[in-house]
C-alpha cells in the first residue's frame, strides 16, 4: 500500500516545471488575445523533454511511460497556462501505440505531430459515438466511416478539436454503418480534409473544426476499448491541466489576501475570504486525490478508468471554475482588469468547462458508471 508519487515522477514533474519556466507563458496568454504571434512555440521544448514519446513503447522509440506521467506534465502546463498540445498529442499517441502504427518512431521523435480527433463513447442515454457540434446543445454523430481493406474513408465534421491546427497527422474516430467505431490515421494535408483553425476566449488553446469529405486514411486496428480509453485520457488530461491552474489561482489569491488591508486588517483575516480560499484548497486537494486515482486506475485497474477520469474532470472542472472566480473576487475590482492575471485563468476556466463534452458530461459519466455498477450488483 503506497499512494504517493515515486521519486522518478517527482523528478519528471520538476523537470517539466523547469522547462516551462523558461518562457513567460502567462504574459503571452494576455498578449496573444490581441496578437496570436505572441505565443511562444513550446513544441521544441516538448520534444526535448520527450513528451511526444511518453506513451509510446521503447521499441518504437518512446519512453514507454504511463498516462500518469502525462497527467503530471499537463498539471505543470496548466499551472502556467502553457499551450503545449498534450490534449491532441497523448490520446493520439496512445491509439497509435496500441495499433503499432509505422509512424510511431517519427511521432516519438517529434518529427510528426499527431492530433486526436475526439469521439465520445456511447452512454446509456446516447447509444452512438458522438462529436462536438459547431454550436448548440445536441451532440452530433461521429464521422461516418467506410472501410475497404486497410483504408478508411471518413465523412463528417468534429467541432473544437484541440491542437489540430498545424498537426501533421490526424487520429480520427469514425463509426461504420453497423455502428462499429474505427480509428484512422489521416494526413492533415490529405484531400478532403479541412482544418478550420480558431480560438475562443482563451488564446492559449489552439483548436479547429475538422471536416472530412470522403477523406482517406489508414486503418488503425484497435478495439473500441482503446478508442474509449483515448476519450477518458483526454478527460483526465483536462482535469490535470485544470488542477495545475487551480494551484496558481490559490497561491496568488492567498499572497494577496495576506498583504491587502481593509478596515485595519489583512483581508485574509476575514472569515468570508478565509473560508472561500479554504474551499479552493478543498477542491484542489480533492482534484489531486482524483488525479492520482485516474493515473493509478489506468494502469492498475483499467475497468475503473472511465469512472476515475470522469470524476477527476468533474471535480477539477468545478475547482477551476470556483478558483478562477474566487481569484477575481479576492482581488476586488483590480482582479477584473485586463492587466491582471486573474482574467487569464478565468478565460481558461470558461473554455475548459465547455470542451470535450464539458464538465457536465463528465459528471454525467460518473453517474452512469455508478448506476451501471449498482444495477450489476
Amino acid at each position, binding site marked *: 500500500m503506497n499512494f504517493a508519487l515515486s521519486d522518478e515522477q517527482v523528478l519528471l514533474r520538476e523537470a517539466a516545471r523547469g522547462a516551462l519556466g523558461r518562457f513567460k507563458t502567462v504574459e503571452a496568454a494576455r498578449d496573444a488575445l490581441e496578437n496570436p504571434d505572441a505565443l511562444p512555440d513550446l513544441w521544441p521544448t516538448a520534444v526535448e523533454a520527450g513528451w511526444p514519446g511518453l506513451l509510446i513503447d521503447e521499441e518504437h522509440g518512446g519512453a514507454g511511460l504511463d498516462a500518469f506521467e502525462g497527467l503530471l506534465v499537463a498539471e505543470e502546463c496548466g499551472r502556467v497556462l502553457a499551450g503545449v498540445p498534450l490534449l491532441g498529442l497523448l490520446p493520439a499517441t496512445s491509439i497509435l501505440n496500441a495499433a503499432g502504427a509505422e509512424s510511431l518512431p517519427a511521432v516519438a521523435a517529434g518529427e510528426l505531430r499527431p492530433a486526436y480527433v475526439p469521439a465520445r463513447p456511447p452512454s446509456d442515454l446516447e447509444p452512438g459515438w458522438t462529436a462536438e457540434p459547431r454550436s*448548440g446543445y445536441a451532440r452530433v454523430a461521429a464521422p461516418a466511416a467506410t472501410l475497404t481493406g486497410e483504408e478508411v474513408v471518413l465523412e463528417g465534421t468534429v467541432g473544437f478539436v484541440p491542437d489540430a491546427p498545424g498537426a501533421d497527422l490526424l487520429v480520427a474516430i469514425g463509426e461504420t454503418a453497423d455502428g462499429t467505431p474505427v480509428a484512422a490515421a489521416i494526413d492533415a494535408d490529405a484531400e478532403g480534409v479541412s482544418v478550420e483553425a480558431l480560438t475562443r476566449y482563451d488564446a492559449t488553446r489552439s483548436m479547429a473544426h475538422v471536416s472530412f469529405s470522403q477523406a482517406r486514411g489508414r486503418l488503425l486496428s484497435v478495439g473500441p476499448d482503446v478508442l474509449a480509453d483515448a476519450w477518458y485520457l483526454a478527460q483526465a488530461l483536462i482535469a490535470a491541466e485544470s488542477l495545475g491552474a487551480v494551484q496558481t489561482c490559490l497561491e496568488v489569491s492567498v499572497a494577496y489576501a495576506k498583504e491587502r488591508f481593509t478596515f*485595519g486588517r489583512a483581508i485574509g483575516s476575514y472569515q468570508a475570504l478565509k473560508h472561500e480560499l479554504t474551499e479552493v484548497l478543498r477542491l484542489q486537494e480533492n482534484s489531486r486525490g482524483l488525479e492520482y486515482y485516474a493515473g493509478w486506475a489506468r494502469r492498475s485497474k483499467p475497468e475503473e478508468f472511465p469512472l476515475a477520469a470522469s470524476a477527476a474532470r468533474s471535480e477539477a472542472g468545478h475547482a477551476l471554475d470556483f478558483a478562477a472566480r474566487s481569484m477575481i473576487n479576492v482581488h476586488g475590482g483590480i482582479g477584473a482588469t485586463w492587466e491582471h492575471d486573474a482574467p487569464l485563468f478565468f478565460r481558461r476556466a470558461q*473554455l475548459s468547462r465547455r470542451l470535450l463534452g464539458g464538465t457536465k458530461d463528465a459528471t454525467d459519466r460518473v453517474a452512469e458508471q455508478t448506476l451501471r455498477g449498482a444495477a450489476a450488483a
Partner: protein
Amino acid sequence: MDLNDTPEQASYREEVRAWLRENKAQAPPRSGSYEDNEYISARRAWQRKLAEAGLAGVTWPRDVGGRGLGPIEQVTVNQEISQAGAPGILDVIGIGMLGPCLIAHGSDEQKSRYLGPMLHGDEVWCQMFSEPAAGSDLAAVQTRARQNDDGTWTLNGQKVWTTNAQFASFGLLLARTDADVPKHKGLTMFIVPMDASGVVVRGLRQISGEAEFNEVFFDDVILDEDSVVGGVGNGWGTALTVLMFERLTIGFGSESFGSSAQLAATLSADPAACRDIEVRQRLGNIITELLAVRFNGYRALTALARGQIPGPEAGLAKVTLVNAAISATELGADVVGPEALAPDSDWSYLISFLPGLKSAGGTEQILRNTIGERVLGLPPEPRLDKGVPFSELRAKEKEAVAR
C-alpha cells in the same frame, strides 16, 4: 395592491409618451461607444432636449430646474423612454447622485453655477471616491488636499473606477485634508475641474479589453477655496449622501442585463436544451430570482413613494441580480457551447463584464456585513482602526505586511 397608474400618473405618462412620439426621431441610438466623441455629443444634445422637456431631473426640486415630482414619475419616464427605444440621459451619475448631493450640501453659488449645465448635459460629472487602497473601506482614501496660505488647495493622489471621466467636465472628489485624526474625520469633498492642469485621465481596461472605467491622477492640482462642498472635515457625511442616492437607483433595473430574455430565447430555440431537466432547473431558479427582484422593486418603489428612505437591504437586490445574471450567462454559454465564447458573441461580452460588476459599489462581503449589522442587528466585527489617527493606521499596516 395595484400596479396600474392612478389617473394622475396615467395622464403624466400620456404627457411623456406624447412628447416622445414627437421627438424620439431626433434621439441617438440607445447604445454606442463611450469612447466615440460623436456619439457622446449626440447623447449630450438628447439630454438637453429631455431636460428642456422636464424629463431630466424629474425628482429635482423646481427651484433648481427640476420637475419636483416623485420616484414613481421618474420610473414612468424611464419606462416610456425605453419603450420609445430611445436612450435616457447621458449623465446618470451626475443627475442621479452628485446633483442631489450638491442640492443637499452645496452653497448657493455652487448650485447656481453647476446644476443647470449638469442638467442640460453641457457639463457631465464623474464621482471620484474610490482609490486603489480605498475600495470597500472608502474612508481610507489617501488622496491628499493641503490648504495653501492663499486659501487654495493643492491636490495630489490617485482615483480609480471613475466612470465617464474621459469626457466629464467636473468631478466630485473625496480627499484627506487631515491625516492626524481618525480616518472618517479628516476627509473633505471637493469639486474638481477635469481640465485643471495636473489632472490626468487614463482608461482602465476590463476583462473584455474595453475601458469601462478610468484611473485619474492628480499632480499638484490647484483648487479654489470655494471648491469645497459641505465644509472642510465633513467629507464623510457628504459622501454618505451620495451613497444614499446611489442606493435609490439599485434594484429598479432588474432587466437591465437583458440576460434573462436572451437566455430564454436561446434555450427555447434549442430542443435538446428544452428537454434537459438540469437546464430547466437552472433556468427556473434564475428566472425566479429575477422575478423576485422585480417585484421587490415595486415594493421598494411603493415605500419610496410614501417617503420611506430605503435601508441597506436594498443591497440584497444587487446581490441577487448580479449572481442571477452570472448564472444566466453561464447557462446560456453552456447550452451554446464553446461558440458562445466567440469574440463577437453577446455571451462572451457578458461573461467578461459581470465579474467586475460583482465588486462594483462594494463587494458582496461588505454588503452582507452592512445588512447583517444594520438590518438584522448582529454585532459588528471588532474594528482595529477605531479612533486611531489615519497616519498611525497606515504605519501599522506597512509593518504588519513587512512581518
